[in-house]
C-alpha cells in the first residue's frame, strides 16, 4: 500500500465564468501535515471542499488512499467508505453543529453510521472521543449553544476523528477562535496526529499558525499555487513576490500597514520570520 494518501493533479473548479481553483496539484504523505496558505478568495476553501467531495472538480484528477475519485454520482456505501478516508472540520464552530443535537448524540451518530457497536459500546467510545479532545462526560448531554466556540470546535474535531479517517481537512479551523484557544486546539491537533498518525490538510490565512502545524506548505493566489515547499523555508526565505507580501502583511512590533507591500518592506521581513519561527 502506497504511503501517499492524497494525490491531486491539475484540479480546477469553475463557478460560471469565474475560475476559483486553477490547475492545483498536490500530494500528501501519510502522517504529513500540509498547509494551504492564501488570502480570502484565493481558492483554498474551494480546494478543501473538492478534496472532501463537497464540490465536483471541473477538471483534474484526485486519488485518495490509492483509489481514484472520479466525478459523478456515488453510492451511499461508497460515500461512507470515502468518509473513513477523509473528514473535514469547518471554520465556523457555531453553525457546524446541529443546534438541536446533544454533543454525545453528535458523536454517537457518526459512530452509529460507521461501526456496528452495541449502544453501550457506542456510548463508551463517544465518551472516550470527547475525552480525547479535552471535553468531559458532563458535556455529552449539553446542546451546542451551551458550549463556547473552542469547545464546539473540539466537538467538531471529535466528530471527524470518530470515523477514524486517514486525512483530516481543517478549513480555517482555528480562525474563528481567540488566540489562546487557537493554541489549545493546535496542541490538541498535534497530539492527535502524534497518537494516530493521521494526515492533515490545514487551510489557513494565518502564517504563524501554519508554521506551528505543518511541515510542508503551498501558497495559493487567485486559484493557483504560486509557491510550495517546506513550511520553515517558505516562511523564512520566500522566493515569490506574493509569498513575500503575504508575510510582510503579518502584524509585528513596529509594523506599519501598507497596501500590498512589495520589495522594500517585504525584504526586511526578518521580524516576521522571527515570530513565526519561534
Amino acid at each position, binding site marked *: 500500500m502506497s504511503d501517499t494518501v492524497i494525490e491531486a493533479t491539475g484540479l480546477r473548479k469553475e463557478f460560471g465564468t469565474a475560475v476559483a481553483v486553477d490547475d492545483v496539484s498536490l500530494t500528501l504523505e501519510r502522517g504529513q501535515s500540509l498547509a494551504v496558505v492564501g488570502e480570502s478568495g484565493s481558492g483554498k476553501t474551494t480546494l478543501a471542499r473538492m478534496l*472532501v*467531495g*463537497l464540490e465536483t472538480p471541473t477538471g483534474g484528477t484526485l486519488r485518495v488512499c490509492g483509489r481514484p475519485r472520479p466525478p459523478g454520482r456515488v453510492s*451511499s456505501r461508497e*460515500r*461512507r*467508505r*470515502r*468518509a*473513513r478516508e*477523509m*473528514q*473535514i472540520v*469547518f*471554520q*465556523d464552530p457555531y*453553525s*457546524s*453543529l*446541529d*443546534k*438541536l*443535537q446533544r454533543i454525545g448524540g453528535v458523536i454517537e*451518530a*457518526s459512530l452509529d*453510521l*460507521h461501526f456496528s457497536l452495541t449502544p453501550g459500546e457506542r456510548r463508551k467510545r463517544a465518551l472516550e472521543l470527547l475525552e480525547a479532545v479535552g471535553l468531559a462526560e458532563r458535556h455529552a448531554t449539553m446542546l451546542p449553544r451551551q458550549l463556547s466556540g473552542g469547545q464546539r470546535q473540539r466537538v*467538531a474535531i471529535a*466528530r*471527524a476523528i470518530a*470515523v477514524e479517517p486517514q486525512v483530516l481537512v481543517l478549513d480555517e479551523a482555528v480562525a474563528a477562535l481567540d488566540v489562546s484557544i487557537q493554541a489549545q486546539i493546535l496542541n490538541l491537533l498535534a497530539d492527535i496526529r502524534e497518537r494516530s498518525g493521521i494526515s492533515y490538510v490545514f487551510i489557513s490565512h494565518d502564517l504563524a499558525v501554519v508554521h506551528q502545524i505543518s511541515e510542508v506548505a503551498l501558497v495559493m493566489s487567485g486559484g493557483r499555487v504560486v509557491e510550495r515547499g517546506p513550511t520553515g523555508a517558505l516562511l523564512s526565505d520566500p522566493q515569490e513576490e506574493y509569498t513575500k507580501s503575504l508575510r510582510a502583511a503579518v502584524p509585528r512590533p513596529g509594523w506599519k500597514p501598507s497596501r500590498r507591500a512589495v520589495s522594500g518592506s517585504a525584504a526586511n521581513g526578518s521580524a516576521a520570520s522571527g515570530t513565526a519561527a519561534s
Partner: protein
Amino acid sequence: MTALDTVRPRGGFRLPRPGPALRRLGPLGTGAAVLLAAVLATTLLAPVVAPYDPNRPDLFNALAGASPAHLLGGDALGRDVLSRLMWGARTTLSGPLLIIFLSTTIGTTLAITAAWAGGKVDAVVSRLLDVLFAVPGIVFALVAVAVLGPGVPGVVLGLTIAYTPYVARVVRSAALRERQLPYIAAAWVQGRSAVGICVRHLLPNLRPLIVAQSVSALGFAVIDLAAISFLGLGVQPPTADWGLMVKSGLDSATRGQPLEALGAGLLIALVVAAVNILGDRIGREEGELR
C-alpha cells in the same frame, strides 16, 4: 433594620408562577389555548355531553327560543341547536385538520426534495407551485366538487391542493437557507445519506416553522370549509356542521330564531381567532429561536 429587610416580602404568599409554556404563550395565547382545548374536549365528548341526538327532529321545538330544556332553542326542524353545535364541531374541525395534515405533509416533502436536489427538480417544483398559486383555493375546491360530487372528500382534496403551495413555498426557502449551513455539509462528508440528513437534521430544524405555518393555515381552512359548506357544496345535510348551520340558521333567524346562526357563526369566529393567535405565538417563538 437593614435595607434588605424592607425589600423582602412580608408574608409567605406568592402568586403561583405560570409554567414555562404558559408564560411564553402570554394571557391572550393562554386564553386561545384554553378555548381550543374546551372546543376539542366538547367535540370528543359530544356523545356524552350533548343533551339530545343532534339529528332527531322535534316539531314542538321547531324554531323555539332558548328554554331550560333547550338552552339554545331548536332549528327549523326542531333539532336541538346546542347538541348540533357540539356535534358539528367534529365535521367543522376534522375536515380542516385533515386538509392541513395532508397539505403540510405533501408541501414539506415537495419543498425539502426541491431544496435538497436543487437544479432541475427545484425548477420544476417551483414552477408547479407558481401555477398552483395562480389559481384561488376555492376554485380547486369547486372543480374537485364538480368531479367528485358535493361532499367533504371533494372539498378536502381541492383545499389540500390549494394549501400545499403555501406550505411548500415557506418551507422551501427555509430549507434552502438551512442546507447551506456547515453542519449539513459535515453530515454529508460523514457519509450520511441525503434522506438521512433531511430526516435527522433538516426536518427537526424546520419543525417550528412548519408547525407555525400549519397552525395559521388551519384558521384559513376552517373558514374555507365552512364557506363551502355554506354554499351547499361541502358538508351535506343532515350532518351537523357549523358552516351549514350558519346557512340554515339564516333562514331561522328571519323567522325569529337567531341563536342557530349566531352560535355557529360565533364559534367559527372564535375558533379561527384562537387558532390564529396560537399560530402567531408559535411563529414568534420560532423567530426568537433563530
